[in-house]
């Protein structure tokens, strides 16, 4: 069974329209808005700042703390119950792991860098959008980074491998696999890899190749967003 024509008319290897902007939360140390199709994420970074309770402090390096949250009205169906869920806690944790490799936290001992990401509207790929937005917000905050992290979900739908899956594709009746991926495209280092669904090894390798291409495109938009901030200022 084949999935050759995508529901929204995109090519199999085509991203949805992307928009990125930094400095969207003036009170934060750094912030970013990242839109990919109808999935919209806002990230804000606070810190490095003192970490309490004190026993959480690490005197060798700073602590990165991510918080992923969907606004109550941003789900696909019924209202999402506010507050942390098992899902949001897991996503917050994998976000930390996805971003950590490009940060040098030894520069900020005993402190915390808080990253808050809020989803305003969702159409799949929310953890990837959250990571991409968070990475931009960290850069906007002036945190030294080895590279930006870019992230996108690849899917197997039928036997096609497609870039940047939508909700409609996630719900594809005849089976699919959803593979969120984040990477530092400069080194090719993959910092997030998850999979929900059946895949052959070849399909996974294809998926990773496709994700790299997608992440490279996303990174160009991220870099442009950072540059735009300084262009716009008088």
């Amino acid at each position, binding site marked *: 069974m084949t999935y050759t024509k995508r529901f929204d008319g995109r090519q199999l290897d085509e991203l949805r329209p992307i928009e990125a902007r930094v400095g*969207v*939360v*003036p*009170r*934060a140390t750094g912030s970013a808005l990242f839109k990919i199709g*109808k999935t*919209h994420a*806002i*990230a*804000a970074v*606070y810190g490095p*700042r003192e970490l309490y309770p004190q026993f959480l402090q690490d005197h060798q390096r700073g602590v990165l703390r991510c*918080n992923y*949250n969907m*606004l*109550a*009205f*941003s*789900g*696909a*169906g*019924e*209202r999402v119950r*506010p*507050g*942390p869920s098992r899902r949001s806690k897991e996503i917050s944790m994998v976000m930390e792991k996805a971003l950590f490799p490009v940060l040098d936290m030894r520069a900020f001992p005993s402190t915390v860098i*808080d990253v*808050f*990401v*809020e989803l*305003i*509207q*969702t*159409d799949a790929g929310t953890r990837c959008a959250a990571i991409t937005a968070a990475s931009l917000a960290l850069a906007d905050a002036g945190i030294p980074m080895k590279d930006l992290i870019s992230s996108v979900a690849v899917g197997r739908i039928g036997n096609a491998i497609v870039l940047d899956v939508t909700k409609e594709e996630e719900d594809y009746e005849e089976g699919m696999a959803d593979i969120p991926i984040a990477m530092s495209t400069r080194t090719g280092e993959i910092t997030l890899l998850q999979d929900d669904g059946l895949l052959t090894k070849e399909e996974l390798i294809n998926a990773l190749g496709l994700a790299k291409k997608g992440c490279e495109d996303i990174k160009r938009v991220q870099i442009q967003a950072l540059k735009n901030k300084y262009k716009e200022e008088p």
Partner: protein
Amino acid sequence: MIDITKQHILTTLSKGSREDERAFTAYRPITVEYGISPKSAEGSARVTIGKTEVVVGIKLEIASPFPDRPDEGTIIVNAELLPLSNPEFESGPPSVEAIELSRVVDRAIREGKALDFKKLSITPGEKAWIVLIDIYPINDDGNLFDAAALGSIAALKNAKFPKVEDDKISYGHLTNQSLPLEQLPISCTVLKIGDSFLVDPLNSEEGQMDARLTIGCLEDGNICALQKGGNAGLTIQDVEKMVEIAQEKTQELRRHL
């Protein structure tokens, strides 16, 4: 201990001036944007007042009506003070500040008869629409109360009923039927610091206030809700003055819808 910040604000105000050089009863620039989450929410809006930004979304559900009001639907207002929007906000269960914010917005909408609850009834005694209003600050640069109230009304204006198939809501598929919005209550919060009254406070002004009064007004200028805050009392003359300011300012805010 002498509070230097308070002293500074009082001195500035006594010269007839504010930190950002606004007149005491001038709002910062206001924008209202509709449909900021059209894929997910049944209605939504973003309000900015200066650098303060608040988003509000509406979700609709079908539930049994309250036994004492079998032929009415209802609203539920919730506000969460996101740690993303202010370094002083913390994650966790709703703070008392968040609860107050949601209840003050709820009161203006409920008591201002913004929605005709009877028209939210589907089958009396069995089914009615519940309108869930969720408020989130994105950047708190002061005056969340007025931004949240204005945003809630804007989101209600933007909302459409979803399609219903076999008694189940088909989320993501909207009808073109708007909610039964009969009145547009608007809130204005007036602060008292020393002998001065001012609207649209910045964070720094909120931190040094003696008292505040949030006043919900309808189009004809009548009051539909009040909430006093702050540690100092107000005289009758104070209240009168604050209401007059709110009546004038809510007309101005209303023009942004």
